[in-house]
C-alpha cells in the first residue's frame, strides 16, 4: 500500500471532520451550554448548503458565506421563537422547523433537489487559485476549513466569557436561578439559537462547496453525527474551561471521521455512517449511566448477589 493510499483518506477525514466540527461547535453552544436539544440542525445545515450553493451559482462565491449564515440565523430565530414565545415544546419546535425547511430548501434550490457546483467558483476554488504553486496547494480544503473552525473556536471562547455569554450559559445551567434573576431567559434562548443556527448553516455551506455538489439530503442525520462528535469530545476534553472544551469537540469531530474512515478500510459500506453515529451516541450517553448503575446491577444479578430464601 502506498503512502498516498493511506494519506488520501486520512486527509479527507480531517477535511470532513473540520467542516462538520462547525456543526458540532453549534451544538456545543445550543446543547451543552443552553441545554436545548435543537433538532432543526439537519434542516438548518441543508439550508446553509442550499443558500451557499445558490449564491455561489449566481456568481458570488464570497457572499455565499454571510448569506448562508444569515439564513441560519433565520432558522434559529424561528425555532427559538416557537419555544419561547409560542409555547411549543423545544424538541417539537426543532422537528417542526426541520420539516418545514425541507420545502424551503427545495425552493431555494429552484425546485430541484440537486445542484451541481463542478464548474462554479466557490470559496474553495478561490483559495485553490491563490495557493497554486505553493507547497500548500494540495491542502486548500483543509486550510479553508481550519481557518473557519479557528475563527469560530476563538469567537466562542471569547463570547462565552462575556456577560451575554455567561447569561446564556446560566440559562442552560440553572433555569430556576435565571427565573429569579434579572436575565431574560427567552431572550437568551433566542440569541443562543440564532448564533448556533448561523454556525450550523456555515458548516453546511462549506460542505456543499467542498463536495462541489448540493443534494437535498446533505444534512440528513447531521444532528446525530454532530452529537456523537460532541460526546466523543466531551470524553477526551470535557473537564476544562470553555475554550478547552471547544477544542475538545473539534477533536471529537475529527476522531469520529477517522474512526469512520478506518471502518471503511475494513470494507464497511459507506451507507453505514449513520448507523455507526447512532450507536456511538447511544454508547456515549448510556455508558456513564450504566457505569453508575454497575454496583446495583452486579449485586442484583451477579455472583452471590442473590440469596435463596
Amino acid at each position, binding site marked *: 500500500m502506498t503512502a498516498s493510499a493511506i494519506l488520501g483518506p486520512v486527509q479527507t477525514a480531517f477535511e470532513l471532520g473540520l467542516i462538520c466540527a462547525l456543526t458540532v461547535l453549534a451544538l456545543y453552544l445550543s446543547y451543552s451550554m443552553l441545554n436545548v436539544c435543537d433538532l432543526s440542525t439537519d434542516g438548518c445545515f441543508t439550508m446553509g448548503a442550499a443558500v451557499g450553493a445558490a449564491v455561489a451559482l449566481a456568481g458570488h462565491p464570497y457572499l455565499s458565506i454571510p448569506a448562508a449564515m444569515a439564513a441560519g440565523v433565520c432558522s434559529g430565530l424561528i425555532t427559538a421563537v416557537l419555544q419561547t414565545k409560542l409555547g411549543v415544546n423545544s424538541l417539537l419546535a426543532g422537528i417542526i422547523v426541520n420539516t418545514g425547511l425541507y420545502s424551503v430548501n427545495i425552493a431555494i434550490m429552484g425546485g430541484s433537489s440537486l445542484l451541481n457546483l463542478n464548474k462554479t467558483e466557490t470559496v474553495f476554488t478561490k483559495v485553490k487559485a491563490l495557493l497554486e504553486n505553493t507547497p500548500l496547494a494540495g491542502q486548500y480544503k483543509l486550510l479553508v476549513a481550519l481557518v473557519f473552525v479557528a475563527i469560530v473556536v476563538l469567537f466562542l471562547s471569547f463570547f462565552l466569557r462575556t456577560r451575554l455569554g455567561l447569561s446564556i450559559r446560566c440559562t442552560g445551567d440553572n433555569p430556576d436561578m435565571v427565573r*429569579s434573576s434579572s436575565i*431574560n431567559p427567552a431572550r437568551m434562548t433566542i440569541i443562543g439559537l440564532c448564533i448556533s443556527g448561523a454556525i450550523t448553516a456555515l458548516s453546511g455551506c462549506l460542505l456543499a462547496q467542498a463536495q462541489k455538489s448540493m443534494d437535498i439530503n446533505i444534512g440528513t442525520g447531521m444532528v446525530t453525527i454532530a452529537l456523537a462528535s460532541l460526546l466523543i469530545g466531551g470524553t477526551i476534553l470535557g473537564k476544562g474551561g470553555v475554550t478547552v472544551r471547544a477544542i475538545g469537540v473539534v477533536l471529537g469531530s475529527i476522531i469520529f471521521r477517522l474512526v469512520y474512515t478506518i471502518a471503511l478500510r475494513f470494507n464497511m459500506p459507506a451507507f453505514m455512517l449513520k448507523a455507526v453515529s447512532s450507536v456511538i451516541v447511544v454508547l456515549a450517553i448510556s455508558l456513564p449511566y450504566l457505569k453508575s448503575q454497575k454496583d446495583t446491577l452486579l449485586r442484583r444479578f451477579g455472583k452471590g448477589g442473590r440469596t435463596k430464601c
Partner: protein
Amino acid sequence: MLRIEHISKTFNPGTVNEKAALRDFSLHVKPGDFVTIIGSNGAGKSTLFNAVCGSFLTDQGRILLGGKDITFMPEHRRSKQIGRLFQDPMRGTAPNMTIEENLYLASGQGGSFSRIRKKEREMFRDRLALLDMGLENRMNSKVGLLSGGQRQALTLLMATMVPPQLLLLDEHTAALDPGTADKVLRLTKEIVEQSQITCMMVTHNMQQALDLGNRTLMMADGGIVLDIEGEERAGLCVDDLLTRFRVGTGKALDNDRILLG
C-alpha cells in the same frame, strides 16, 4: 417602600382543588424595615413572595415598589430591584460556572460584551473574604463543588451585591445544618444592616422571628393575623406569640416544625 393593596390569589378556581392562597391582602413595608413572617404551611407566605416577585399575576389588587406600580411588570424586570433567596441552596447559583462567573452575572457590571476585569475580580475577592469561608481562594472553582451552606452564602452575596430595594428570604437557612444556618443568618443580618436593605424573611423558627428584624407578621389562611413591632414586640417571648396566635385565629398552632423550632 413596598405597598401591597388588596391582592388576592386563588389557585385552581372552580375545581375541587380550589385554594385561596391570599385573601384581600394588604401590607405596607417602610424603607429599612426588616420584617419576619411566620405561619404554618399553606398560610400563604411563599405565595406572597411569589406575588411580589411576579411569578404569577394576582387576581386583583396592585403592588407598588418604591412608589412605582409593578403589578404587571415581568418577573425578570422586577428582579433588578428585588433579591430573593430560597430554601433550596441549589436554586440560586449556576453549578457548572465558576464562583467569579456567578458573581459577575450578579454584579450587573459592564455591557453585554464585557468580560471580568481585574478590578472586578479584586472586588469579588474582598466580598468573598467577608464570608470567612475561604471562597476567596477558590474563585475559579465550579460552584457545584461547594457545600450547601457555602452555596447559600454565595447566593446571599450575589443577591445583595447590588443592594436591591427589597430582599426576600424564603426560609433560606432551613436546609442547612444548625452551625451553618447560624453563620448564614449572621451574615444576612450584617449585610442587611450595612447596606440598609429593606427585607422580608419567612422563618419557621419563632425565636428567630422575634430576635431578628424590627417587625413580625403572623400569617394564617392567606391573611395577616398578627402584626407587631416596636415596644409591643420587644417584650414578647415565644409563648406569648403562641397565645396571640390562638387568640387571632381561634385555633392552636398545630405545626411541629414551628413548635419545636
